[in-house]
């Protein structure tokens, strides 16, 4: 009993700070979302009987942004997973200069998102950026990477993949390091090719790490904000606007805190649903994989 009390006391300061920063905002949003609090009310919260939630259901921009955010997150996580796996396999091999190689490939993840978001803005610049210069030197004409509503979202995904792929690679590398070498050796002696080893041994054993990376990255990608704010500002024509950016604009530009809180809370709920769905899917798939291997 006594050591238990000591443990709780030791944990208290950290838990209090966590509650203030993570739990309080959600409660506050819940309360604010049931109030009108904007320039019209002099920023004083006035109960408005759930009008914010009614507005949300009819808000085409919210649902468009929800779709765009989901598209961004799914594409980004899928590409990161494939690229991250390739990178992890490369970094796992006992190559000369592996330490520096790990450090240098890790660098994009360590840099502030905004820094390279502006870097990408220059690289994708129309017409002066290097990518367009390369296209022209090959005989093509400049392409508005960041000004074509139909395709700009994909280049935002690319910039995100560049930054976060090393993180996924590291998580998968952690998984690779837990696989005993003699298992691989045994399969090789049986005459299995490298692709077969990957499919029959490596991938099934990586499932927990892949799940972890997917869930973690999915949560982060669904809350994407700084990359989009700096790279495109949500444009062109709102085609890359994310839910978090929409919530931010509601609060800081339209000064509508009641509705901004509603959007944030709705984003959080969508996030929970997506993650729950993703988890179930991964679990079923993971179990299928494991039984397949056992058979």
């Amino acid at each position, binding site marked *: 009993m006594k050591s238990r009390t000591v443990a709780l006391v030791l944990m208290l300061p950290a838990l209090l700070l966590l509650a203030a920063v993570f739990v309080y905002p959600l409660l506050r949003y819940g309360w604010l979302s049931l109030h009108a609090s904007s320039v019209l009310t002099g920023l004083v919260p006035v109960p408005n009987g759930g009008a914010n939630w009614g507005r949300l259901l009819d808000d085409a921009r919210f649902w468009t942004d929800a779709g765009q955010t989901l598209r961004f997150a799914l594409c980004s996580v899928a590409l990161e997973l494939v690229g991250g796996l390739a990178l992890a396999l*490369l970094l796992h091999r006992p190559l000369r200069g592996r330490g520096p190689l790990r450090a240098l490939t890790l660098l994009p993840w360590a840099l502030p998102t*905004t820094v390279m978001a502006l870097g990408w803005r220059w690289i994708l610049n129309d017409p002066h950026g290097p990518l367009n210069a390369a296209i022209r030197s090959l005989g093509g004409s400049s392409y508005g990477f960041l000004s074509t509503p139909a395709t700009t979202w994909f280049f935002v995904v690319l910039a995100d993949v560049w930054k976060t792929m090393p993180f996924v690679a590291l998580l998968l590398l952690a998984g690779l390091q837990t696989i005993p070498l003699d298992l691989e050796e045994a399969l090789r002696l049986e005459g299995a090719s490298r692709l077969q080893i990957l499919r029959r041994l490596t991938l099934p054993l990586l499932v927990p790490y892949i799940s972890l990376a997917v869930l973690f990255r999915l949560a982060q990608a669904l809350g994407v904000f700084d990359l989009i704010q700096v790279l495109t500002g949500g444009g062109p024509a709102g085609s890359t606007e994310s839910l978090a950016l929409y919530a931010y604009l509601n609060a800081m530009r339209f000064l509508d805190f009641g509705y901004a809180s509603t959007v944030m809370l709705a984003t959080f709920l969508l996030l929970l649903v997506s993650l729950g769905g993703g988890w179930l899917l991964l679990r079923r798939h993971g179990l299928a994989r494991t039984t397949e291997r056992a058979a």
Partner: protein
Amino acid sequence: MRLLALLWSLGPLLWQLRTSLLRPEALVAPLPEGNPWTLANYQLVLSGDPPFWQYLANSTLVGLATTLLTLLLAVPCAYGLQTLRGPIRWGVGLALVAAAMFPTVLLFLALLEIARNFGLANNLLALSLPYAALSLPLAVLLLRAAFADLPGELEDAARLEGLGLGQRLRFVLLPLLGPALASTAILVFLASWNEYAIALTWISRSDLLTLPIAIARIGGGSVFTIPYGAFAAATVLGSLPLLLLVLLAQRSIVSGLTRGAVKG
């Protein structure tokens, strides 16, 4: 393969380096004659008001304060969590994982209200409070895994010697946690150095901006007016400390993240 990985990771950065060393006219079209290379972009950035190194100093201050505060809170919490059994341990662990995954941008509005009510805006040290909270979940999980790896007999022996809890932590357990503390500290420092949404809303005085905000402000105008040369110079200067940190601490970072994955 190695070359491809390096090209993909470093290509965009090297292009920034090249841009930062070119005269503005040379960015738009190849110069007909003359030397296109210049250091003028760096002079411009370093002689700005406030000078660029001020942002580096601000970010370093916030990063150090955050790291210190996080470790001060996370070490006792991790130790306490490790000694607990039963549903509380399980519940707190799960809550920590959930908090570690939470997209922090969704917190900024309520945190901004707190900052206004308590007069914490435009205060770099106060900024380390929310930053410490954002880093705590991962830090506690990493350190709890490290505590779990220590042999239990060690602490029992120290207890029999009559050492109190504070002494056991300070003289017996913490010295053995060196590597885990180092990698946790580096990850916390990096996260604080790179945070955007909260710094964006808490700090408005231009001499107090952290690096990510300052750099985003350079590009704050329209797409067409960004001084790309000066901006690239700022990117290079802002990346150098991180390049050094990652090169020096690569082993710590990798082991920290991988341990977190294995144990978490």
